[in-house]
């Protein structure tokens, strides 16, 4: 990647690459999947626990934002939405179909596919480097194939949530590493 492309890409995708801020949320979703009550709470505490956990994850995301602002800086940029018609067609089509199946035939099997299409949007953004395309394609493929495998073998469908969250967790880390590789340490760059 040449310097002009790197600088433009980093500036335009700075916030998008800060996925590490959502890390506790995915860890929480992975942790609660083996059972509905992983910390063996009883009474009102059991009902309040998810809100506290999600609240804490939100707090972490906010604190992460503050950290990034102080350490790497702040910029005012517009959020980039995928412009590909294929993406929007797939996204809306799969979501409508998944919702239709949930409401009319009480079948939840299409929801993981629809959700996967939501987060593989970087695949349809031409500005992304080949590496980011590759790991998003791999992640999408992993979730799609495991969802299909679970449906064919009639296994417990809840495992797909764990797979999704683990994959999203890995993507957060990969995005963070990409962000770090795009930033130049002060004093090492074009210090003319």
């Amino acid at each position: 990647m040449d310097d002009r492309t790197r600088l433009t890409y980093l500036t335009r995708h700075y916030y998008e690459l800060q996925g590490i801020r959502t890390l506790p949320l995915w860890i929480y979703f992975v942790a609660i999947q083996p059972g509905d009550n992983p910390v063996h709470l009883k009474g009102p505490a059991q009902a309040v626990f998810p809100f506290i956990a999600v609240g804490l994850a939100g707090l972490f995301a906010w604190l992460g934002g503050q950290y990034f602002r102080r350490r790497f800086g702040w910029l005012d940029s517009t959020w980039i939405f995928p412009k590909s018609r294929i993406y929007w067609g797939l996204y809306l089509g799969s979501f409508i179909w998944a919702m239709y199946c949930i409401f009319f035939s009480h079948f939840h099997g299409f929801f993981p596919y629809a959700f996967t299409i939501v987060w593989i949007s970087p695949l349809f953004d031409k500005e992304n480097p080949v590496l980011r395309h590759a790991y998003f394609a791999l992640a999408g493929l992993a979730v799609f194939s495991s969802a299909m495998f679970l449906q064919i073998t009639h296994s417990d469908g809840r495992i797909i949530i764990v797979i999704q969250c683990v994959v999203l967790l890995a993507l957060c880390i990969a995005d963070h590493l990409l962000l770090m590789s795009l930033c130049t340490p002060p004093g090492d760059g074009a210090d003319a």
Partner: protein
Amino acid sequence: MPENQPNFPKVDRVIHEPARLAILTVLSACSSADFTFLQTATGLSKGNLSVQLTRLEEAGLTSIDRVLERKKTRTTVKLSSAGGIQLNEYWNTMKRIQEQGAARLDKDFARTSLNLKKRATDR
């Protein structure tokens, strides 16, 4: 000797400097950026970045806004409309130079290969 000078289009010297070009490239991709982000992206030292920003502001390519936030000054830099136009013009000039260079290289290459062929047939 002016006759021997290559006939390339003139390049804006203020923009052509690598550090300033890097700053302008970042600013052209967003509405505004703060000092820390410019440092992160370009890798320039504080002193150098400060000097380059002043130079760009003097040339009217950027506008600098300083706000006091929690006892600290936050410097935000924006690309001016003139800066945007001049940066575009700069990239167009560079493209023209590249095209001219490529055309000249093609001519030289054709001439050299013709000479080589002639030599080979003479032998």
